């Protein structure tokens, strides 16, 4: 329950920031809310705001979205053993609500009780994440629309600050730190030498290669095995 409250606060806070950023980037309330309802992926939504600002083509935005959200594959794989005996249609619906937060809450809950708990998943995915995220998005986009010059209030730093906050949230060890730093350096270098769109693509795709070359510590390897790959299936 305490974990849930923390995630409600986090989803609400980031949802508000997303709404403000989207509004500042010129998204209408319908467009910003459509992103939150249909995509429902915070990092990729923030990234889309940056891509739209950067003048990316839609094809480029969609391509990078696929990369940003590829990590959901690991979350889904982590929960799959618990949900294997549930109806296919139910698993198909559950998949749409799979996020970092829903996975974190669900997998720890499933492991604690030793089996799947579908109502518990809905609580984590919808009650704790989906609803606060979408309500906060609407609040942010409406609030942002009522501020004539966001930069006067320092709101133009919200976007990069949110990006850093989200990146830090995904960092669990040395390889992630290296991937983030190298990705950022490559992105800036290529942006200056060529174009920001190419820089973002290069940083996002080459940074992880540097992370792959970094050896995680023993504690990180254990954490990786337990949290990401090794959700213990029900007995």
């Amino acid at each position, binding site marked *: 329950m305490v974990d849930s409250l923390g995630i409600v606060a986090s989803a609400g806070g980031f949802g508000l920031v997303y709404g403000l950023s989207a509004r500042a980037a010129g998204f209408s309330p319908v467009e910003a809310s459509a992103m939150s309802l249909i995509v429902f992926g915070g990092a990729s939504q923030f990234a889309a705001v940056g891509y739209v600002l950067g*003048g990316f083509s*839609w094809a480029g935005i969609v391509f990078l979205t696929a*990369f940003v*959200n590829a990590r959901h594959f690991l979350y889904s794989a982590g929960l799959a053993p618990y949900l294997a005996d549930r109806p296919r249609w139910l698993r198909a619906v559950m998949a749409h609500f799979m996020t970092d937060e829903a996975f974190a809450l669900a997998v720890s809950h499933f492991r604690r009780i030793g089996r799947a708990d579908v109502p518990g998943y809905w609580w984590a995915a919808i009650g704790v994440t989906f609803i606060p995220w979408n309500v906060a998005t609407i609040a942010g986009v409406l609030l942002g629309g009522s501020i004539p010059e966001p930069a006067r209030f320092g709101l133009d730093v919200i976007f990069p600050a949110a990006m850093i906050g989200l990146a830090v949230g995904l960092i669990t060890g040395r390889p992630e730190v290296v991937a983030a730093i190298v990705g950022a350096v490559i992105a800036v270098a290529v942006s200056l030498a060529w174009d920001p769109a190419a820089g973002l693509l290069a940083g996002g795709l080459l*940074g992880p290669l540097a992370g792959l070359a970094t050896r995680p510590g023993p504690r990180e390897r254990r954490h990786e095995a337990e949290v990401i790959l090794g959700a213990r299936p029900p007995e």
Partner: protein
Amino acid sequence: MSTVLVPLAILMALVTYPWRAVPLLAPGMHRLPPTAQTYIRLVGPAILASLAAVNTMVVLDAARHPSFHISASSGSRSGSARRSWSPVVDSSRGWSSRHSSSPSSVPWASRPCPSPLP
């Protein structure tokens, strides 16, 4: 009210959903090589850090020529003049910020800059 970006949201959802659904709907499909799994896990931090870095350090002028600044901008679309953040010393209040409509007016290297982020 504009709905131009709604189809983009649908396309983004279409490329996201398979990542979320395939392991749940097709058991065994999730057995990627460990290296591929690690790469996938590292893409998120790398892309988000790249976005933050480019957004704070690269400024485009009206002709889309990039230059290096410590700046933050989200309130204007690419191609238009972008505001740049630069720290200035206010003797009574320490570091504060100012906005300039001319990115090139504040060379980043001309004075030490703390991070503009909170």
